[in-house]
């Protein structure tokens, strides 16, 4: 081998290393970007927390102040009210708005014993202030019998709030928000959407793939069908969004749903997924050797028997892959869903109402008044973790299946 050849080879090889290096760098940067901003926000609470804070007003029918000692473990940045036994700090909410956060509440604090004054079914029920809440507005009478309002809404700092508390004579009411900024609703909505989309798309997609691969004769109609589906896979998702609100919305209207909804999103996603499922299923049907079909038919089986007994079981890994790919696609989709499910983050998603998936929640957060990189990044991390888990499970499952039914 000549020197020239060796050098030339070396250069070409180096190019591939370089390219792969770029790929790694990109991933690292994307990951770093989301992790740096979002990692601190990742915790289990996030998954169970709602996005919107609960808004409560409580009153205190029997209110007595006490004398509390500041516990030693409270940090310097926390203001402590000795009369009410509460520690407060300044914070920022999901919108980067100022908050007065309850960091500590003495077990004996009178603030535990409020009753709900919000009109509704909970009216009059016992509800105390809880740690983590944000005091939006606290109305009290000070020792001068003057009504004083303090709290986040009044842009009071924790220090100021505590000062007002320590000057209390009578407690009127407290308007506080529970912790929000969670993704519970979007997570649920995502799951609903995945479930519903798959329920719609998988049977149709698989059946269509079966039709195309097993039955369709090579004629113009079939060709048209095939290229239609092929074309469908090239349609950008934003167009699917348009299609959703124009073509599919009337269908949901027939069901009595008059707004964007998870159902509408699922129908739209089903259309998005159809070509993917059909193609993937067809791929795996094609891999099933034609000989197996012949074998089955030559044993006097009907085509339906052949399909259900021989072909589908063999194509199962492919269908599984299709399913998992579909799930990834749903998780990642945004443009189509912005149109069909809206951008309002619903904490208690319902199939007949709009909601956001995790990805749309990111979009929603990013395109809102104040882009929230942190929460977006946190959600991104969660999405990446889900995707990673899916990826690993696909590999594990197909490894299992291959090991068991390897056709080689």
């Amino acid at each position, binding site marked *: 081998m000549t020197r020239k050849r060796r050098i030339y080879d070396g250069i070409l090889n180096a*190019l591939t*290393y370089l390219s792969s290096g770029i790929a790694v760098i990109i*991933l690292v940067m994307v990951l770093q970007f989301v992790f740096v901003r979002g990692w601190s926000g990742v915790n289990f609470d996030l998954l169970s927390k709602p996005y919107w804070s609960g808004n409560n007003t409580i009153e205190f029918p029997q209110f007595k102040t006490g004398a509390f000692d500041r516990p030693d473990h409270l940090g310097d940045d926390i203001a402590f009210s000795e009369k009410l036994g509460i520690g407060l700090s300044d914070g920022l909410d999901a919108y980067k708005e100022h908050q007065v956060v309850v960091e500590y509440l003495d077990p004996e604090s009178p603030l535990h014993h409020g009753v709900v004054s919000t009109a509704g079914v909970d009216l009059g029920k016992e509800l105390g202030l809880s740690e983590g809440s944000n005091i939006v507005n606290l109305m009290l009478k000070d020792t001068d019998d003057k009504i004083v309002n303090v709290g986040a809404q009044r842009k009071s700092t924790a220090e100021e709030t505590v000062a007002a508390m320590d000057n209390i004579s009578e407690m009127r009411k407290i308007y506080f928000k529970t912790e929000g900024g969670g993704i519970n609703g979007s997570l649920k909505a995502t799951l609903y959407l995945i479930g519903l989309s798959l329920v719609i798309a998988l049977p149709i997609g698989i*059946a269509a793939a079966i039709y195309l691969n097993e039955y369709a004769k090579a004629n113009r109609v079939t060709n048209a069908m095939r290229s239609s589906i092929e074309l469908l896979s090239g349609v950008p998702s*934003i167009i699917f969004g348009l299609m959703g609100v124009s073509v599919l919305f009337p269908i949901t209207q027939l069901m009595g749903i008059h707004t964007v909804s998870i159902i509408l999103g699922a129908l739209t996603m089903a259309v998005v997924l159809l070509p993917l499922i059909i193609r993937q299923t067809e791929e795996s049907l094609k891999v099933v050797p034609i000989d197996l079909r012949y074998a089955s038919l030559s044993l006097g089986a009907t085509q339906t028997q052949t*399909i259900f007994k021989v072909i589908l079981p063999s194509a199962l890994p492919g269908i599984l892959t299709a399913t998992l790919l579909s799930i990834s696609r749903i998780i990642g989709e945004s443009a189509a869903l912005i149109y069909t499910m809206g951008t309002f983050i619903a904490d208690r998603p319902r199939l007949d109402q709009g909601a956001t998936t995790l990805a749309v929640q990111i979009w929603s957060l990013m395109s809102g008044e104040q882009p929230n990189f942190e929460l977006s990044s946190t959600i991104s991390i969660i999405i990446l973790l889900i*995707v990673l888990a899916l990826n690993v499970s696909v590999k594990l499952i197909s490894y299992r299946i291959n090991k068991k039914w390897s056709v080689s």
Partner: protein
Amino acid sequence: MDSKHHLISEAYQRRKKGWDKFFKGLFWLAGFISAIFIILIIVFIVRKGIGPFLPSYPGGAYPIGKFLTGFQWRQDSAIYGVAFIVINTIISALGALLISFPISVLTALFITKIAPRSLSRIMTTIVELLAAIPSVVYGVFAAGVIVRWVDSLAAMAGFSTYGGNSLLAVSILLAIMVFPTMTSLAIVAINAVPRELVEGSLALGATTTQTNFRVVLTSAKSGIFAGLILGLGRAFGEATAVSMVAGNSMIGPTFNPFNITRTLTSTMLAGLKETQGLDYDIRFSVGIILMAVILVTNLGIHFVKDRIGRSMS
């Protein structure tokens, strides 16, 4: 000969054939439903998208010529010219491919042929992860990071940018977004290259590298081109992330990579604000154009591919 035929019941045979017919119908229906959607989409979008150009349009027809050839997109003055957007879209997508295609192919080659097995597994996972990252996340990343690169680059080159929002940023973003698609298809294509070809080349005294570049890549080219087409489709169709860094200029076409741009999808997404009227309907018109652009470029690539294929052989 002990025949089993007496065991076979006539009734079962009939039932079996009945089911056969039933399922065939069912499968056909599914196929039909799947196929009909594209027609629904086209019909609906065309109907809606053509609407603004028809005399019957409430508020008067928008001149289609102006739409197709216009070089301004100004909602405020109700000027909708899509020509420059098409050009910008194509430029940004091609720019993306220019960056991404060689990198993808080389990475795929690295993963399949060069890297040791453990590294190649890691790389595959990396590519898969990149593929699975939702486009909004890329959008966030682009709005946070890519724009700054572009901005610094522009500063070095003596240009000023709109905070990095630019054609180049769109291209880089799209390049990153299409990279995993193209890479994984290239990986599939390269893996599909029969081992015999590789051995054939080595047996002729070619080095591994020569084999990789002369035989493996050549043999995988149709799969690689399929990836290119898919990548291009994605580049054209990507909306949410692109609209975060495009800048949505009102005129064009833009050839300066540091200038703001406007793509068909970002235009459509900007129209999201609207639910009625010309502004709303015109995005269906843009949709038609988008579909047409995708179709035409696909055909174009097929053509180029055939030409390359032929000249190679």
